[in-house]
């Protein structure tokens, strides 16, 4: 497609080095993707062998931590897209996590047998995966719709007001679920099949990180960051601020929903107590600890905050004290977060102005 880019700008002799980047791997990307999938499957076998089939007594416990860390990574990376990159302080992430968990569990619980009948000719493992793909799609779609419905009215608000509104919506979603009898209501939703495996959790972790990273370094990511930096200037540069915010919100919600689906089909039991605003705060702490806006930081924060409470489990009642102290120390000595301010830039910026 011919572009008018060059026509509007006079030919300016440029000393800037504009090199064509080489992407030799671009033509073989399918090969790479298949290879990565194969690698993940092998990794799954290794993980199963070590944690589940091995002589390791506490294996299943560590396996559970591993899976939960993966789910937390997806939640943190996706929330980071709104809170860290677009700069909109949302505290309703647990609500979208819940929507994904419950809708997907509803689908596999009530229609699981019918759906399985459709792929009856496939081996059992593949049937599970096919069912999980459907559940993931449903969860992503439902949470995206919820994100859209919540986002359109609330994202016009700023700062504290947005935080309060999203907090409220998160709680509304939870209370709604509590009153739906088909998903167990206050009894909790039990009898969900276990479909989430290490492979699927790891794959979704990779997909969510890749999606967010690719978005951040594209024109969309620059628009999101511009909104965070200065909304008025972003508007004046032609960015549809509300639309961009809603877009970030919807993508983020969709990934939270997928995390919910993986969670539901791992724990096999859901109760609304897992989706209170404390859960939202936990995710916010993960991204603040890792460094707002940094994807690597979100991953690190999620891993640390999944492992840390487990490590301190032995200290019983002092656990929360140590946990809080650790957070306070980090806020004092590293307020930008562990990996704050490193993702957006490819080259390390020179701190002083150049002449």
């Amino acid at each position, binding site marked *: *497609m011919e572009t008018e880019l060059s026509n509007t700008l006079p030919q300016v*002799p440029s000393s*800037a080095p504009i090199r064509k980047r080489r992407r030799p791997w671009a033509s073989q990307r399918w090969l790479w993707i298949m290879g990565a999938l194969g690698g993940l499957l092998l990794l799954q076998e290794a993980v199963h062998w070590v944690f589940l089939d091995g002589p390791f007594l506490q294996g299943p416990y560590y396996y559970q931590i591993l899976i939960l860390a993966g789910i937390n990574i997806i939640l943190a990376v996706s929330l980071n897209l709104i809170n860290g990159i677009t700069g909109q302080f949302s505290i309703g992430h647990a609500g979208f996590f819940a929507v994904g968990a419950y809708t997907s569990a509803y689908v596999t619980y009530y229609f699981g047998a019918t759906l399985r009948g459709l792929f009856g000719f496939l081996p059992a493992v593949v049937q599970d995966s096919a069912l999980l793909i459907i559940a993931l799609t449903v969860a992503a779609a439902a949470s995206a719709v919820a994100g859209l419905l919540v986002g359109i009215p609330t994202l016009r608000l700023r700062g504290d007001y947005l935080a309060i509104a999203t907090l409220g919506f998160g709680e509304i979603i939870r209370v709604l679920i509590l009153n739906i009898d088909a998903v167990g209501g206050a009894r909790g939703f039990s009898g969900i099949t276990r479909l989430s495996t290490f492979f699927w959790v790891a794959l979704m972790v990779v997909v969510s990180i890749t999606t967010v990273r*690719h978005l951040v370094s594209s024109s969309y990511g*620059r628009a999101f*960051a511009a909104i965070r930096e200065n909304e008025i200037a972003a508007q004046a*540069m032609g960015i549809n*601020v509300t639309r961009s915010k809603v877009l970030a919100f919807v993508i983020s919600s969709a990934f939270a929903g997928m995390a919910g689906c993986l969670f539901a089909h791992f724990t096999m039991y859901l109760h609304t107590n897992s989706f209170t605003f404390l859960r939202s705060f936990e995710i916010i702490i993960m991204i603040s600890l890792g460094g707002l806006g940094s994807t690597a930081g979100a991953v690190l924060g999620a891993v640390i905050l999944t492992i840390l409470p487990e490590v301190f489990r032995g200290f019983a009642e002092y656990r929360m004290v140590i946990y809080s102290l650790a957070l306070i120390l980090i806020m004092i000595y590293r307020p930008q977060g562990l990996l704050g301010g490193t993702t957006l830039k490819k080259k390390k910026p020179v*701190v002083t*102005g150049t002449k």
Partner: protein
Amino acid sequence: MAVLELNDCVIRFGGLVAVKDLNLFVKKSELFGLIGPNGAGKTTIFNLITGVYPPTSGAILLEGNRIDGKAPHVIASRGIARTFQNIRLFDTMTVLENVKVSSHMSKRQNIWSAVVRSPAFHEEEEEIEAFAYRLLSLFQLEGCAHDLSMNLPYGHQRRLEIARALATRPKLLLLDEPAAGMNPQEAVALMALIRRLRDEFDLSILLVEHNMKVVMGVCERIQVIEYGQTITVGTPEEVRTHPGVIEAYLGKE
């Protein structure tokens, strides 16, 4: 032919009439100045044109099409770009990224293409980067392309704001006090730059400025505003000798 035309525009904030029956037109390729004492409503007029405030009544036309009441990003996409009196850069983004932001509205690739990194996406990104580098080199900023914009010296930040505005490929550029905080040498360089931009980019430029040397030196026509109303419009010479203008600035004997 008028690029920009304001017909009987009024802005009321509650009981305060900030802009009253304003008529203004900027011709194609014109350097047009807007001056007036502090609080005269100059920045309000900028916000009116760029859609930050809709007019209480009146019409704004860009190349004959109504733009009043449109959202700021729509007006930007129609071809009006601006800088700000108090610099509003994207602080923690690099200089290069600041300029690249302005290409968002003219991008052709959709979000899916950005996520899966299609070849067309890479092609467009390279185009955007080349375009941004060319603009930066025009403003002698290519050397600090990878610095954070908040770490630039003041004069560089002012130039970057203009570069970023030009990256939206406007027909009309609004400069809000571009010479604020500049020393006399920098102001002279700025005047040359403004003229050069007009010629090379085929732009019309509307500027608000307190530095009379810059306004009188660079503008072809000047409109003087006081209390939201027009005192006079004319060439720098006419404006300088107009009794109403002298009165507004120096007071009556």
